[in-house]
């Protein structure tokens, strides 16, 4: 064996030592304390599962990013892509007949295939929680509040939660034929107003709200203005966000920005969805939302809402 095969590590892998390890441990401990006090039970699923578990939960997008290998009997395994899939599997089997709601939490590494170019990490530390079996506003509020508490426990001050609702754009997008819908989603995702407007020239009237709704971003007033102008299909989602806003305390609201332009995960989320942004980090440090279709894919339909935070991103934020 050549020496280089033991001195180098694969792209996207990382050796952590000293303060880098201590900082992650401290963050993890502080956040798990918050989760435990909030009544969430820690669950430690396996590091690898049959790949079907992750594909079933996350669909085609996830299938592209699994790190797979072959078991002795020829079945395909995958390293843990996320915790939510495993939580759903356990909730649908072992806890199938237990009391509801279920409050589960986790901490550990997830593994994702990244494009070769960037040298992005393929292993990331996460802490997160799932609230299963409760589909009302109170559950959404609980998870949003929990996310804010976790951010505080991580020592963050300058952070914001960008919160949207999958229902707001769904009606308009459904009115488009498949090809145009893919284009429109891409322009919304890139925030390219000009290309979006040109694409929508061919769109039916029911999609007209897509001109403006994706660019609504702001506090409660922005939502109220959008709700006044929005078509019926979008209004239920906006009303839900307004009700959530009303349920929060002023110091919690200070961290919330309503943002109706996020189309990623729109095939996954069924209600609220959010991302955590922290000054000093170039990408989201956490994400969550409601995915009421998830448990049905594991044979036990029930509402589900959750959050996961990226401990590596949080640990690397300059103090």
């Amino acid at each position, binding site marked *: 064996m050549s020496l280089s095969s033991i001195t180098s590590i694969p792209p996207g892998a990382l050796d952590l030592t000293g303060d880098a390890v201590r900082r992650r441990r401290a963050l993890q401990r502080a956040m798990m304390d918050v989760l435990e006090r909030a009544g969430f039970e820690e669950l430690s699923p396996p590091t690898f599962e049959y790949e079907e578990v992750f594909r079933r939960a996350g669909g085609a997008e996830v299938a592209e990013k699994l790190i797979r290998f072959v078991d002795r009997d020829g079945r395909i395994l995958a390293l843990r892509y996320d915790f939510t899939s495993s939580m759903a599997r356990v909730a649908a089997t072992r806890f199938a007949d237990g009391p509801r709601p279920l409050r589960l939490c986790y901490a550990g590494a997830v593994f994702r295939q990244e*494009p070769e170019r960037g040298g992005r990490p393929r292993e990331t530390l996460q802490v997160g929680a799932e609230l299963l079996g409760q589909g009302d506003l109170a559950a959404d509020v609980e998870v949003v509040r929990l996310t804010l508490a976790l951010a505080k426990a991580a020592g963050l001050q300058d952070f914001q939660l960008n919160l949207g609702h999958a229902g707001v754009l769904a009606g308009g997008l459904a009115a488009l034929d498949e090809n145009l819908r893919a284009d429109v989603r891409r322009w919304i995702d*890139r*925030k*390219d107003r000009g290309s979006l407007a040109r694409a929508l020239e061919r769109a039916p009237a029911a999609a007209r709200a897509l001109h403006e709704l994706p660019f609504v971003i702001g506090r409660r007033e922005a939502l109220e203005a959008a709700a006044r102008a929005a078509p019926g299909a979008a209004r239920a989602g906006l009303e839900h966000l307004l009700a959530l806003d009303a349920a929060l305390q002023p110091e919690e609201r200070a961290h919330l*920005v309503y943002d109706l332009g996020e189309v990623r995960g729109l095939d996954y989320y069924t209600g609220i969805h959010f991302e955590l*942004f922290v000054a000093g980090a*170039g*990408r989201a440090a956490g994400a969550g939302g409601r995915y009421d279709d998830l448990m049905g894919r594991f044979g036990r339909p029930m509402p589900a809402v959750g959050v996961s935070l990226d401990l590596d991103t949080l640990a690397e934020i300059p103090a």
Partner: protein
Amino acid sequence: MTRLRVALPKGRLYEPAVARFRRAGIELRADPGRRLLIPSSDPRIEFLVVKPPDVPVYVESGAADLGVAGTDVLRETGADVLEPLELGFGFCRLVVATPADAPYPTLPGGVTPRVATKYPRLAREHFNAHGRPVDIVRVDGSVEVAPLLNLAHWIVDLVDTGGTLRANGLVERETILEVQAVVVANRASQKLKLEAYLDVMGRLETTA
């Protein structure tokens, strides 16, 4: 005060990009020269000048909040950035070109075509999409001489007027991508520095 850092590409897009920001009331304060960060007439905006393929790298990572990049570089790198505004300059095409007398789209005798390019990913995707197997040779410059030197049968490269191609005895065969300059933005900056972002974008849009 929220400060926005804008990455500008060296080379053909630099002057038109500077001119476009000037029309928006944002003037670079110094000649780039050796300075890394260049202040502007707007104290909230500073510039840095990097090689074109590095613009999406700076912006995706958040080292720069905004940038100017060609869609050729963006599609080749697959950078995960916002592309809020087409700038209406830097128009060109990414094309397949071959010597005027070369057979196309297949070579006789079952020879697998070698294609020299600075855009291996876009070239591979293009030939894959048409089910035509090729070998891609990645080069960093002087792509148009590759067929003359027997490095490759064909090339995939940017064409503006076509003068360079003609001078090297090459003809365009297919267009892979229509290219122009766009504004790119970091996804987190757009959210964390929303007001400053909307202000700059608004000024760029209204002074086209």
